[in-house]
């Protein structure tokens, strides 16, 4: 069961949009980071069940963050939430080990569907 969620996105607006799409009928602990580097630090402290990750970020982007998270936990569940849906971007993040990729802007339905799939994996 997913309880702890980490959101890594440089945009506070994107984080807010995503949080509003998370199910309201569940108790979730939500942690936020504004780039990959911050995300990794928070990941080490709280070990989230699920990580939402943007790709285009300053300091440390999503592409570089995925392998570092995989090093910390080979079973990490990463859902990439991005505006960049070029075929090469999609195949690259999946080959790096992301669980799935969702196109921005997220909807409640797309997020809840992804959570269900992630819970099956966990």
């Amino acid at each position, binding site marked *: 069961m997913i309880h702890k969620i980490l959101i890594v996105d440089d945009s*506070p607006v994107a984080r807010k949009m995503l949080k*509003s799409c998370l199910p309201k009928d569940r108790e979730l602990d939500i942690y936020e980071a504004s780039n990959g580097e911050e995300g990794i630090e928070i990941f080490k402290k709280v070990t989230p069940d699920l990580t939402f990750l943007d790709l*285009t970020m300053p300091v440390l982007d999503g592409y570089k963050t995925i392998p570092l998270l995989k090093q910390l936990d080979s079973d990490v569940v990463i859902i990439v939430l*991005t*505006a*960049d849906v070029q075929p090469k971007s999609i195949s690259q993040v999946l080959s790096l080990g992301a669980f799935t990729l969702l196109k*921005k802007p997220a909807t409640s339905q797309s997020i809840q569907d992804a959570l269900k799939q992630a819970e099956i994996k966990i």
Partner: protein
Amino acid sequence: MNQSNIVISDYQKDILQELMNIAFGNATADLTNIIDIHIELSVPDIELLAIRELPEYISETIDTYSETVIINQKFLGDFKGSGLFVFPSSSGHDLSALFEESGFECSQLSGSSLKIEIVMEIGNILIGACVGKISELLNTSVIYSPPQAIFVKENKYDSLVNLFDSSQSVIVMKTRFQQKKGEGFILIITDQDSLDWLKDALDKFMEAYQ
């Protein structure tokens, strides 16, 4: 660089930045549907400046090239302004070669006329996808004028100012498109008249995410 008298809150700027991010992602996806290309996107940057500051802004933003092609496409509606696709000529030649390799058909033109037409088409696709997505997200629609090509030698952008009302302030929304054969920038310029509408539309957009 002086800031104009545009008043937009930090929160509205953040919303605009995220909308730009989504719009540019949409634009690149549209382009990659046409040609075999991958474009690296940068974090969108929102700048507030007066139109008279635009030449200096562009020349500071891009490296010096012998020639730069700027595709200018006006759009009208609740959200109105101009989309500028700033493209160093060398990048244009390389990208147009990619288009030709992909079998893209663009009239019976040849040589430099063909390359100009291809760069205009690229600009048209990117500006249209960006502006169109922003408009869609803000629940409105726009109509476009045909794109025009402007040629600038040696980073001398002063004449650009004459294309716009010099008394107006602008929001410049910029992102960099990079791929192995060059780079380009999109600037979306909107005027003072659109600002009140835009700020209201941004606030309404986020109400759905409270």
